């Protein structure tokens, strides 16, 4: 009898992931045993420290490319850059929660490790080269998010959001698993590269290819759900509105980043030869997403819901890059867009938190009225985020949009780029509405914006990043460009 061969494991290739997971696990225990109630903020600071350490650990890995765990996990500059972006997203989300949780009376220490676990799921998604690993990543991310969504426990909308997200998310997970089963049945492997090699030799009419296509469709549905592509977006506004605001902020950028990173790999390592089948489908979904997201946002008077719809619209713009990832510029545009969107959107959510107050009528557009007269800097920062989300120069949002459109056009989808610019003209309408409220109307008295250290840090980092990348995008472009050298190799 042959002895079981354990494939060699190179832990250094998953060092950042390892740091995040270990740190989060230890932090859970430390929080329970050593950090007293009322000082849970300390846990938050420790969590941020963990994310920073993970980022630093990644530094020496720049340029390293390799697979481990028998080819199931891959590290390359693409994954590493995304890892840094995810760590940044995690840190900014934690920073905006530090005061939010006690203010809302929902401060629990495990919140912070949970965010770290979610980040680890995202990193795993960026590193996964095997459907099982991708599933693992998606579930790590999702299960923590189910909990986080319901974190504002006494508030009914929060519970409702968690329930909706859980039920629908479970469906999506089911699709994912069933899709994996079909793909495995067809190809005999869950490894992306082997699936790709298998599909390359098949022609239409081959039963196994049909099976593979069916499986791929199921997996794509699961992804479309996670990323909130229309028509799989219905859950998004309710879930965002119900969840604690920092969680909504984290979800809006984190889930998209993680799931789409995995989608890039799946499409271009696993299914590159089948793109004549999935490209039209995804292109249709993307067009629909941009239209539905941006039109939906126009009708909102609740800023949180508006941002939820806007995040659907932005999912469409990111998809412009993802779909054409076969071209060098596609994944470049994807990384750049995710980074810029993360900064602008987290910044916008941070401002939203500063204005949030207890009660049913929170997040009204009218709360922004006259903000410029009460807190000029806060209003200016929010204006920067809004202009960036709308894609007006000289903010980073413009550069990101420009890049995504260029990628789409290069990838042979000019009509989709056209839909992109037309919907962005619609989008200008609702972002401008916030700006008009802030600068051009009189304040309506209540609520006084409450800033604190974490929020201020968030807003400053996001605003400086948004303007800085907008004016001098070359260094970030260069970083992104170099991240792509080894993708798909």
């Amino acid at each position, binding site marked *: 009898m042959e002895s079981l061969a354990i494939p060699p494991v190179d832990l250094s290739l998953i060092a950042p992931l390892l740091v995040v997971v270990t740190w989060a696990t230890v932090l859970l225990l430390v929080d329970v045993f050593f950090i007293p109630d009322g000082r849970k903020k300390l846990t938050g600071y420790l969590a941020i420290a963990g994310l920073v350490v993970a980022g630093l650990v990644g530094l020496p890995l720049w340029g390293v490319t390799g697979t481990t765990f028998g080819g199931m996990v891959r590290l390359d500059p693409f994954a590493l850059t995304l890892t840094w972006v995810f760590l940044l997203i995690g840190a900014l989300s934690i920073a905006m929660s530090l005061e939010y949780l006690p203010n809302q009376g929902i401060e629990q220490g495990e919140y912070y490790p949970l965010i770290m676990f979610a980040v680890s799921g995202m990193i795993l998604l960026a590193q996964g080269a095997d459907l099982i690993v991708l599933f693992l990543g998606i579930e790590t991310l999702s299960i923590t998010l189910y909990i986080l969504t319901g974190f504002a426990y006494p508030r009914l909308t929060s519970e409702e959001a968690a329930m909706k997200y859980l039920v629908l998310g479970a469906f999506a997970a089911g699709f994912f698993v069933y899709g994996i089963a079909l793909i495995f049945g067809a190809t005999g492997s869950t490894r992306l590269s082997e699936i790709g090699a298998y599909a390359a030799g098949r022609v239409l009419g081959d039963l196994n290819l049909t099976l593979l296509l069916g499986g791929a469709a199921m997996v794509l549905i699961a992804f479309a759900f996670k990323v909130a592509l229309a028509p799989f977006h219905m859950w998004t506004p309710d879930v965002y509105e119900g969840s604690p605001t920092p969680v909504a902020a984290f979800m809006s950028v984190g889930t998209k980043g993680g799931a789409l990173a995995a989608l890039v790999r799946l499409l271009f390592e696993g299914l590159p030869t089948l793109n004549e089948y999935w490209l039209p489908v995804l292109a249709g979904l993307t067009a629909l997403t941009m239209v539905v997201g941006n039109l939906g946002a126009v009708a909102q008077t609740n800023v949180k819901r508006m941002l939820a719809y806007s995040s659907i619209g932005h999912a469409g713009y990111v998809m412009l890059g993802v779909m054409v990832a076969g071209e060098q510029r596609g994944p470049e545009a994807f990384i750049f867009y995710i980074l810029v969107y993360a900064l602008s959107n987290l910044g916008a959510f941070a401002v939203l938190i500063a204005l949030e107050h207890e009660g049913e009528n929170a997040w009204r557009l009218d709360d922004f009225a006259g903000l410029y007269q009460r807190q000029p800097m806060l209003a200016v920062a929010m204006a920067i985020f809004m202009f960036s989300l709308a894609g007006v*120069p000289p903010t980073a949002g413009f550069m990101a949009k420009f890049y995504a459109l260029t990628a789409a056009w290069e990838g042979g989808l000019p009509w989709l*780029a056209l839909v992109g610019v037309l919907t962005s003209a619609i989008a*200008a309408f609702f972002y*401008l509405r916030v700006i008009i409220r802030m600068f051009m109307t009189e304040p309506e008295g209540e609520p006084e914006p409450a800033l604190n250290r974490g929020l201020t840090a968030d807003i400053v980092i996001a605003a400086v990043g948004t303007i800085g990348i907008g004016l001098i995008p070359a260094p970030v*472009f260069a970083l992104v460009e170099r991240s792509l050298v080894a993708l798909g190799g």
Partner: protein
Amino acid sequence: MNQLGFPLLSLILWLPAAGALALLFVPRANAGLARQVSLATMIATFLLSLLLPLRFETNPMQMAVVGAPPVMQFVEEVPWLPIVGATYSLGIDGISLWLVMLTTFLGPIVTLSTWDSVHKDVRNFQILLLILQTAMIGVFVAQDLLLFYLFWEFTLIPMTFLIGIWGSQNRIYAARKFFLYTFAGSVLMLLALIALHILHRDAIAAVEPGFRGTFSFSQFVSDLRAGRLTLDTTTERLLFGAFFLAFAVKVPLWPFHTWLPDAHVEAPTAGSVVLAGVLLKLGGYGMIRYNLTLFPAASQWAAPALAVLAVIGIIYGAAVAFAQSDMKKLVAYSSVSHMGFVVLGIFALNAEGISGALLQMVNHGLSTSALFLMVGVLYERRHTRELAEYGGLWKVMPVFAAFSLLVALSSAGLPGLNGFVGEFTIITGAFRSPLLGWIYVAFAVGGVVLAAAYLLKLFRSVFMGDVSQPANATLPDLNRRELTAFALLSIPIVVIGVYPAFFFAGMQHSVAALVADLIAQAAGS
């Protein structure tokens, strides 16, 4: 680097922005200091820009060479986004020279006008004015399409705030309309320049492997003319249309003009002056620089139709202006009419028409700014813009009346003043153009007559007759600042009128080169 050996254009471009930055350190309450810093910056910018016409080579190559890209002067080039081949590339030629001068010249006048009209949050008003100044100069001097687009879109932000924060009752509606109209108008241009970039890159990469694309205007032009990049008819027309739409909204060409009266009426005086004086010119400039130069065949194809729109604008704007009882609306609609002339001149596609259009843009910038200042002067004193509220002011404010007469006549196109030269040249151009002809001219001349009618109506109801309203009997005449502004504006109004040759000389070479290419294109097609 250029004929001066130092980055003059960058200095002119960024000086206002630097002034805006400096203003951030002025306490918000110190309105006086803020105004002074702003005025000093504007004056310094203008003085610096005086070097441009002084050192400008009016005939850099002795003769126009068909097929060469436009000859830029004061050129600066620094890599900016190597990954897509975009550069920080500045330069001016005869087409942009006078428009840059117009912008820098109007700067100090605009700032002067804020002394009496802006009292709320003065510092931030000045910051926005200065940023806007940088953005507008940037549009004229950028020689990289992406950089151009950046400045082009950025002008929206400060202007929207100027209208929306400091405007009158309906300001929010006007600000929103202004932003959305012009933003929606330009998104297609973004797509068009991406398309141009990729088409060009693919075409060049076929002969020069490894070419990564560019956004350089002169490279597009030279490759188009050398036949290294060819656009098929449909593509060229689509690209032409995408660029044109953005510019037509800005100009604004009938029927894209509806944002303009609202924006003008609601904007504070300084905002109206900038809007009419410079912002509208961005559109006309864009048509000449980009539409005609990059897409000559499509320009030939579209010229008659666009000229019809221009003529409709001329007549419509003038007729509606005549019917207004609100002075600011009257002047706003007169802009629609006057800018119609500009578009008519541009699409005559000959040297007379284009030079006339360029000069007319400068003229309109001067006269209409002066008209808005005039309305502003009255509004500050009486807080109404209704014509019926005035009358007989000649007796009360004689100096003001004299300047207003000069301005009104200039705008109406009286020979000897600037407006006449521009309109006359445009009409000559349209008449001689094989694409247009006398029928266009006949209607355009109707516009000139109507212009005289509404401007004289304006002047008569405000200044002539008896002082009908007791409140008007004691109005003070122009104060020192207002006098300075009007006196400054009168200088070019008269100088262009009596000696236009100097101004035509500057643009002559560039226009001749452009027209030579248009003709070569027409012959080739």
